């Protein structure tokens, strides 16, 4: 190793090590602690907000349960005596099956909208054309949106 280079390195190291410390303006510590306290308070407020949202959800669930209790009670009132009779259980199940079949008969109406949408499919371009268009669009967006890589030093 070049002796002079070593001396210079040592001089640079010593000069940097001896650099004086600077102090922030007065009240810095107070501002840091105040910022921490403010964040803690904000977190506490968020906790309260979440608790309030939880309580609201629970209340809503209770309300829905209460509103549903009437029909459920009516349902039980209809079927429980029937099920308790001899051979009544099978009769109750058959009745339930009939109701289910009635509901199933209405399903085509519920799926009518989806069927309409499916009817549009033949009018759409082929999948590979849509895929190519998506890729081309993504490439253009990437090219326009990519940050310019600069070798700029600070």
């Amino acid at each position, binding site marked *: 190793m070049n002796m002079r*280079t070593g001396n*210079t390195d040592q001089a*640079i190291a010593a000069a940097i090590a001896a*650099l004086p410390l600077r102090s922030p303006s007065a009240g810095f510590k107070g501002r840091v*602690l105040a910022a921490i306290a403010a964040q803690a308070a904000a977190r506490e407020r968020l906790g309260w907000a979440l608790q309030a949202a939880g309580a609201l959800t629970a209340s809503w669930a209770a309300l829905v349960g209460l509103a549903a209790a009437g029909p459920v009670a009516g349902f039980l009132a209809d079927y429980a005596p029937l099920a308790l009779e001899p051979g009544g259980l099978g009769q109750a199940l058959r009745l339930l099956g009939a109701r289910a079949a009635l509901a199933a008969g209405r399903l085509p109406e519920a799926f009518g909208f989806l069927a309409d949408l499916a009817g549009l499919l033949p009018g759409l371009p082929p999948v590979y054309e849509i895929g190519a268009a998506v890729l081309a669009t993504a490439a253009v967006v990437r090219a326009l949106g990519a940050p310019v890589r*600069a070798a700029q*030093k600070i």
Partner: protein
Amino acid sequence: MGETEKELLGRCLAGDNAAFGGLVDAYQDRLYSFALRLLKDPAAAEEAAQAAFVKAFRALPSYNIAQPFAPWLFRIAHNACMDALRAGGRTVSMDHEDFPDLPDRAPAMDDSLADALDAERIEALLASLPAIYSEALLLQYREDLGPAEIARVMGVPEGTVKARLFRGRELIKARLRGAGATV
């Protein structure tokens, strides 16, 4: 006698938030000086140092008390400074580390130039370097961190830190030579 750093950290980790004030006392000048030398703006440096302390407080539960505290804190300060530099519209190149303005074979340097490295001059030389070099030099010599710790602070491999230290020193020497030639 005041509490040691470990004691303060132990109290903080046990939930005593007031103990963090002692850590701010212990590190505020070091962190602020570090930020000031990177950002070259007192207001921005103070903001970055404050942000670093606040983030450190929030991240304390993830701090492993068996590890040294200074590199962990300086890592947070490094991130705060990089955020400030980016917010100021400046970019820090991490992957294209050129080696500008250095001749292949540097002429021997006059020892008197190195001897004349006072605080004001080295401060100006550091300020003239790209941030990646001045930061590595400050962490090594001013903060007395080793290459492995600096690597953790800067988030780069240890070999990159060594290269930055070398290049930083060479840039300073080149500028000293340049200044000497003009005398």
